[in-house]
């Protein structure tokens, strides 16, 4: 590690050469095949879509301040929640952690110079952009009012909004997701450094492996489904049109066959982030390494056979509904395994409340609430009452925002020193994490109550007795917005003015922390050889922790303590 410390002062300096100063100019970014630069391209573009989706969310919340709606017509309201969903799900949540943090970290974590297919990696970013342009075109030319689910026959026959460009955009964007997943799978299989065995892989990589399986197996199905719906809209083919004997319910089956596992595309990478943050700030090996790794795969597999729980009240055979209800309970088991293991890791650890840890702890709490309320909805009888109410909205925002977004923002803070080489202002960042947590709960907890009281989702007005809870929710949303804007500001500020971080500021055990911050274009000076077990803080004198023992006798990788 050259040029990282000055012996005299103990202060760190940026390395002389790194991926950010290797080349300059717009071409060096737009034509790069460096996974780290592509990750930053993704960071910029998913942030853009996050704000597009965020603007729609803001308008929705302002509109719902009064029972009859404050801002827009009911038709426009339909478009607002549809465009909020499309922007957030397809263009922010699905690519966020994999394409930004996964792209940046997976090759470094496994000791590779790059992903297996660097050009395909760049291609998938361009595909994402082209898909995004189609969707923005749809937003700009009349918007979209079908709900993000594009149910037929509304989307294929009746809707007068700009459905076709949106469907084309999401279809194209799917290939970006497929190629990213394919790249990760192949990379993990063939690009690992010597000594990096499967059970020495960081849990972040295991989580992304499981995510990639879903991307590769699920996304083609949504692609063909949207293609069929698009053909029906454009050329009046009859796949889902009852007038020709086609079946709209079939669309829902095909749609959810992807879109339920897609929920795990969003949450699994966040779970991977949490599994990295927790041991770092507890200074202790993660409890039950192999169980957490296996539960990621378990979620990916079981996640494929629960889709019809979205259709309990749309009409399906009772026995099928019972089977899907049962399987939906089963998929909670591997998620619970993770939560128990994280909690067990905290036990008797020396916990420090740095910013990433605040996000991780927030994640555990919010994900637990989100997951448990998911079981309410998996229950056949209860679902008849709760279906299509604000309870569902609250449930999936606890998973998606409280889980996936918390994981993403926490992960950004955790690896920010690695990405930029600089630290952010710690106390401001802790304050932002707490503001985010409070704002989130104030926004979405009232929606559980609204849903339990029977307030239906997707309506532009509501009975006056629900106003207090709606106003609370909108107030929370404004705090939440502050919680997102703060990191935007201080992270951007820190890119130039932040304190130099050094290679391993926390310190922690992963391979990515053994290289410079920011890393070289080739990631490492020479291919690293891994001879330590994951999350072992004891036999790692190089971390400079008290009570370190010499390497040699290897601590058990998993299951100790």
């Amino acid at each position, binding site marked *: 590690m050259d040029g990282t410390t000055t012996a005299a002062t103990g202060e760190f300096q940026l390395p002389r050469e790194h991926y950010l100063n290797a080349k300059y100019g717009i071409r060096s970014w737009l034509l790069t095949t460096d996974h780290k630069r592509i990750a930053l391209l993704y960071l910029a573009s998913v942030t853009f879509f996050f704000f597009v989706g965020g603007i729609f969310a803001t308008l929705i919340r302002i509109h719902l301040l009064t029972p009859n709606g404050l801002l827009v017509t009911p038709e426009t309201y339909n478009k607002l929640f549809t465009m909020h969903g499309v922007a957030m799900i397809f263009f922010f949540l699905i690519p966020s952690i994999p394409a930004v943090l996964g792209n940046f970290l997976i090759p470094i974590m496994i000791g590779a110079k*790059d992903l*297996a297919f660097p050009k395909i990696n760049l291609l998938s970013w361009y595909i994402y952009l082209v898909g995004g342009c189609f969707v923005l075109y749809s937003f700009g030319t009349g918007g979209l009012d079908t709900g993000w689910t594009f149910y037929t026959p509304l989307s294929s026959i009746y809707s007068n909004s700009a459905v076709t460009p949106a469907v084309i955009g999401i279809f194209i964007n799917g290939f970006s997701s497929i190629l990213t997943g*394919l790249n990760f799978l*192949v990379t993990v*299989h063939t690009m690992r450094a010597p000594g990096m065995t499967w059970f020495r892989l960081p849990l972040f990589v295991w989580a992304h492996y499981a995510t990639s399986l879903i991307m590769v*197996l699920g996304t*083609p199905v949504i692609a063909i489904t949207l293609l069929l719906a698009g*053909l029906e809209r454009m050329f009046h083919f009859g796949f889902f049109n009852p007038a020709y004997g*086609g079946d709209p319910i079939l669309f829902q089956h095909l749609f959810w066959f992807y879109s339920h596992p897609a929920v795990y595309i969003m949450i699994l990478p966040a779970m991977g982030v949490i599994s990295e943050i927790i041991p770092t700030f507890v200074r202790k090996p993660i409890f039950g390494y192999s169980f957490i790794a296996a539960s990621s795969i378990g979620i990916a597999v079981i996640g494929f056979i629960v889709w019809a729980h979205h259709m309990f009240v749309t009409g399906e055979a009772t026995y099928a509904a019972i089977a899907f209800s049962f399987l939906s309970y089963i998929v909670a088991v591997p998620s619970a395994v993770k939560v128990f293991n994280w909690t067990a890791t905290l036990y008797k650890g020396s916990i420090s409340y740095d910013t990433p840890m605040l996000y991780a702890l927030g994640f555990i709490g919010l994900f637990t609430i989100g997951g448990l309320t998911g079981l309410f909805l998996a229950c056949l009888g209860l679902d008849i009452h709760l279906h299509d109410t604000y309870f569902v909205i609250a449930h999936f925002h606890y998973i998606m925002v409280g889980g996936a977004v918390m994981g993403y923002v926490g992960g950004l803070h955790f690896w920010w020193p690695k990405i930029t080489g600089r630290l952010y202002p710690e106390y401001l960042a802790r304050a932002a994490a707490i503001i985010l947590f409070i704002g989130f709960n104030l926004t979405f907890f009232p929606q559980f109550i609204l849903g339990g009281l029977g307030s239906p989702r997707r309506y532009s007005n509501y009975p006056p007795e629900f106003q207090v809870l709606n106003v609370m929710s909108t107030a929370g949303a404004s705090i939440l917005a502050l919680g997102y804007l703060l990191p935007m500001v201080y992270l951007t500020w820190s890119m130039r003015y932040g304190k130099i971080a050094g290679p391993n500021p926390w310190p922690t055990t992963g391979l990515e922390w053994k290289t410079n911050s920011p890393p070289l274009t080739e990631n490492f000076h020479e291919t690293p050889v891994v001879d330590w077990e994951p999350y072992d803080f004891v036999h790692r004198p190089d971390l400079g922790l008290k009570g370190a023992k010499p390497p040699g006798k290897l601590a058990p990788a998993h299951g100790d303590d």
Partner: protein
Amino acid sequence: MHRTGELFGQFKTLEQQKETATLGMWIFLVTEILFFGGLFLTYTINRHEFPSAFGVAGNMLDLNLGFANTIVLIASSFTMAMSVWSAETSRKKAIVVWLIATLVLGSVFLGIKVVEYKQKFDHHLVPGRNFDITYCSNSRNPCGLNAKDFENEQKEVREAIEAEGDYAKEQGFSYPGTMGMTAVNAHAQLYFSLYFGMTGLHALHMIVGAGLLLYLILEARKGRFDANYNTPVENIGLYWHFVDIVWIFLFPLLYLINRHLI
């Protein structure tokens, strides 16, 4: 463009590079199976739902052209396999010959497909306003069928209308005769939606494959491929075989079920 057997920066050895590319191709083919899977599922459900209309509609495909295409495509799989073998055994001239043969056979397939599509268009079998399943069996015999085929077709259409009419009567609809006619026409239209969707998507894959073959031919002419370096030939070969196998499923599903061969 890379030269023969050049090692890309992210790999340590040529073996690793080849293994990686091949694994990537196999995973890509898995995504393709899932992609076509949605269509096959839609087809299977509707075939089960509307056997009589799908039966009569399937009989309106041209079996001779479909069969010819199957032979052409299997032959192209053979020539593709030969070009992979030629590459692995460093027969640099033979690679080009076999690849050109594959490209020619692929183009013949697409040509025959164009003839078939044109025929369906002439016979009013393209989904839309002018779709008419009874067009070829009306008394003027506009499709110029020979006497026996014409009689068969009239009989089949009549039977399908009766079958759907019986179903309408069972369900207690009024005017079962008219209902039967409407139902057959609607469900046959669904069949042809699937026919054009499935064969169209397959043809699109063939066109992509033809482009890839063209690239391989240009590279092979420069002598790029030999026993040490043939990954592109092998992987594009895998893709080509996959597209062939899709057709091997499409042909019986679309052309052969309910076919009266006598």
